[in-house]
Each structure stands twice: as structure tokens, then as C-alpha cells.
């Protein structure tokens, strides 16, 4: 079992590629890997409870740990998050790099 940090920077309403990245996260966790998805920049728009992003909601159910960059949330005035999404400082990226987890950016 490997540990992955997948960093998503894109808004799913702007880029269809995001759905493929969500699928990658789901595939990795279904293959018994431990997967964290960190939303940064415009990717945090998907973490609003009012956003209709079923792919992200499915990841919560699939066992992917979902985090959102607190700075990106604050910049965009987002204070309420989808259930299962946790606001974190950017330090979390360094935590994963230090631990040797496979870290990818999209």
C-alpha cells in the first residue's frame, strides 16, 4: 500500500480534466492505497456545499481524505464546506513530502 497526496488546483466547472483526477483518486483508493486529495486555488470552489460536484462527493464516500487550502478558501470568501472536507494550512503539503508520500499536482 502506498500513500498519495493528489493536489488539485483547477475548478471543475472550468476544466473537464478535474473529473479524471477525481477518478485517479478513486482508482488509487480502490486499489488499497491511502489517498489524500488537497484542493488549492480555484479547486476549492467544488468544496462549497451548494456546488453540484457529484464526483467529489463520491470520493468522500469512497474513503479519500479531502482537504482544502485555508488560504484559497479565505481568498474566495468560502466559510462553509461540504461534509467530509477539512480546511488545512498549506503546511500539509510539506508534511506529506517529508513523509515520502507520492505527491502529484494537477
Amino acid at each position: 500500500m502506498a500513500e498519495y497526496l493528489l493536489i488539485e488546483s483547477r475548478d471543475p466547472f472550468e476544466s473537464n480534466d478535474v473529473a479524471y483526477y477525481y477518478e485517479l483518486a478513486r482508482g488509487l483508493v480502490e486499489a488499497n492505497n491511502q489517498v489524500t486529495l488537497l484542493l488549492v486555488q480555484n479547486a476549492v470552489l467544488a468544496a462549497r456545499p451548494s456546488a453540484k460536484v457529484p464526483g467529489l462527493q463520491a470520493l468522500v464516500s469512497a474513503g479519500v481524505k479531502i482537504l482544502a487550502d485555508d488560504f484559497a478558501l479565505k481568498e474566495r470568501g468560502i466559510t462553509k464546506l461540504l461534509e467530509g472536507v477539512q480546511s488545512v494550512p498549506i503546511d500539509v503539503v510539506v508534511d506529506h513530502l517529508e513523509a515520502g508520500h507520492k505527491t502529484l499536482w494537477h
Partner: protein
Amino acid sequence: MPSKTITIALMDPPYESENLTTAFRILDVLARRGHNVNVFAYEGAAGLAFTKQVAHPNPVHGKNLAEENHPTTKDQVAALLALAGANGGKIDWVNCGMCVDERGVGEFVAGTRRGSPADFHAFSEASDNVLVIPTK
């Protein structure tokens, strides 16, 4: 936590992409924790440490130079190098040579150097971990 060697590859040019804001925030944490950090500045990112960047006033908003307080990436790079040193770490910042020549940005912040993708390969081989931040 013992010091680690971490490589970060950047590709975005200055003043265009939020990717760099996030990348510099990650580099700031790495520097504060005293890690040895390698940065490979590729393509547009080769201009981040270009010393002829100049802060400017904003006449449209009626702000003079001091009021505008315009940040330059060359100052941010220099600050990162100093921060790493102050915390017992080091940043080895390599500007891709061909990318630099194409853009005419061959005068770098002191402490950064010219290199090639071979440096990125060597960095990757010698690092505990690598993060590539590509352009969109």
C-alpha cells in the same frame, strides 16, 4: 524531524499564474523547517529570479511606488534563500539555461545559478521527494 532534501520544479512565468503563489507558500514552509530544497525553474519560471524586474507605482489608482508596494518575484526568491539559510537549510535554485537565453533573463538573483534539465534529473535522484508544478 530531521532535515530532508526536497525538489520542486516550477514552470509558470512571473505575474501570471496562481500556481506560483501556492508554490512560494510551499517553499516558505520548507525553508522555515530548515530543509534542503532544490528548485528547478523551467520554461517561464526561468524569469522568476531575473534581477532587472522593477517595482512600479500605479497611476491608475493614484498610488506612488511606496503606496503600491508592488512585490517582485526576484525579491521573493532572495527572501526564500535568506529564510532557508536562517533556519539551517539551503535552497539550490537552478534556472534552466536555454529557457533563460530564449527570454533574455540571464541576470539572476545572487545565490541562484544557471543549469539544465540534467540538474533536475540529478536533483530527483538525490532527493527524498519531488513535486512538479506544471503549467495549465
